[in-house]
């Protein structure tokens, strides 16, 4: 099993329209896979589908070798899940919650759970319903990690948390990943956080995955080129053009993908001055990829 999560041809209907259509997603074992996408693109729905919480309309899902949703309960025993919002029973105390949770997971590590509880400064007798957002976030991460999972599925785990709590939660996550062979799927719109932590990226838009590749390839391949003017002769470019925009004066601004440094020679041969090659950070790469994908589907429609 080379992929912790394998999704093919997934479709899901919410009401009349298809929230997810023909989704193909493969999360490699041991990777930290960043799931990026605008609001409403279907990230949370996809996560619920792969955890067996929703019935798919079509397609296949395999998680940790189990068919979902049929074998979901078997896969879930090895998965640590942090949902978007607090999902725990509000009238239980933290200690009661931990005890209840532990009884369902054979791999629960009691010592580690206690260590995390103290590290996160959570008191055992606090009621879950009275926790602040930060404390709730820490508790959910604690439960997900103490299960000793092979797969972590995190839906906006640090959204709305203050910087200190965010740091604590991420550190605990990464310390776990360092010492256990685990795969992590993080859905987040906090692009800068995804940038330092993820080594794979999947970009979702309109119910479909529009890009899926190793992080370094995504980032290094996408560049913004500042060009003196339109190329004199148009021999096919060795790179992919995501966008062409007017710049200052006669200049043009191209956003390209699959760029390599030796491709400057193409500009030399086409008699157009390449003024500048600008690296885009993850956020800009993500925005440009989305724009290009939307333009392409707009044109095709």
């Amino acid at each position: 099993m080379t992929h912790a999560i394998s999704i093919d041809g997934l479709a899901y209907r919410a009401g009349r329209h298809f929230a997810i259509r023909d989704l193909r997603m493969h999360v490699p074992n041991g990777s930290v896979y960043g799931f990026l996408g605008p609001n409403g693109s279907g990230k949370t729905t996809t996560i619920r589908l792969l955890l067996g919480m929703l019935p798919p309309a079509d397609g296949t899902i395999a998680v940790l070798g189990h068919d979902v949703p049929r074998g979901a309960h078997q896969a879930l025993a090895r998965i640590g899940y942090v949902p978007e919002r607090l999902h725990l029973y509000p009238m239980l105390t933290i200690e009661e919650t931990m005890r209840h949770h532990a009884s369902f997971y054979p791999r629960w590590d009691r010592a580690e759970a206690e260590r995390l509880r103290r590290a996160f400064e959570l008191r055992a007798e606090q009621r879950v319903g009275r926790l602040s957002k930060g404390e709730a976030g820490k508790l959910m991460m604690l439960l997900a990690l103490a299960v000793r999972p092979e797969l972590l599925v995190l839906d906006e785990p640090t959204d709305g948390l203050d910087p200190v709590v965010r740091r604590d939660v991420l550190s605990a996550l990464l310390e776990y990943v360092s010492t256990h062979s685990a795969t992590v799927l993080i859905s987040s719109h906090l692009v800068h956080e995804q940038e330092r932590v993820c080594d794979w990226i999947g970009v979702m838009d309109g119910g479909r995955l529009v890009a899926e590749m190793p992080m370094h390839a995504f980032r290094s391949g996408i560049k913004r080129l500042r060009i003196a003017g339109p190329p004199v002769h148009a021999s096919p470019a060795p790179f992919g053009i995501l966008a062409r925009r007017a710049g200052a004066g006669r200049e043009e601004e191209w956003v390209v993908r699959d760029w390599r440094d030796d491709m400057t020679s193409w500009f030399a041969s086409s008699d157009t001055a390449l003024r500048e090659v600008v690296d885009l950070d993850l956020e800009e790469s993500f925005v440009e990829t989305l724009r290009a994908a939307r333009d392409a589907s707009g044109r095709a429609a």
Partner: protein
Amino acid sequence: MLTQTLYVQWKWNRDFLAFYTVVAFAAPLVILWVALPHLGLTSARELVSVGEAVGTATEVIAVLAGLTVAWQGYGVDERVGHIYALSLPVTRGRALAMRAGTASLTLALPAVGVWIGAMVAAAQVQLPPSLHSYAGSLASKALLAAWLAHACMFALCYSARRRAKVVLVLLIIGVSTLAVATVVAPSSRPAITRAGDFLISNPGPFGVLFGRWTLIDV
């Protein structure tokens, strides 16, 4: 898993269970206390009617307890969007069975309240040799009725909404058709009433609700 589910069920419902247990215990005593001063020389007939009053009160309490526990339990999950329950590594069937089972176990408490309250109440009265008190039988009826009410409400809450609506609609259509049939086609009446009798009297499924509930009887 089961122990923890029971613990959580208990924690959710303990306030209601405590309430119903106290009421179940007190009802026979209160009814007896209210009825006795007015009876003067208590005849057998009057004692039996007091016993029946206790029985009715107990039945109502038991059914309400069952409905409340099911509704409350479902309400907690509903408040957190069912996400937690769905994310646990158990099959849906097993999760529901554990829920229903442990909730039913907690309903033993009000039944015990009935038993003790009824025994104490019956002990206050001088029963003539022709009459006996049936505190134990009353308590077991209470337990069964609570379980039945709980099961119905539980099934209604946890079945997929569309299916529940369909079942309800079919039930209403079915009963209405039968009712109309007894008027329009008088010859079908005996068969229908016999089927109805089976359902609502012992040993039919709803028998416990429509049978004889009384503390004091011959």
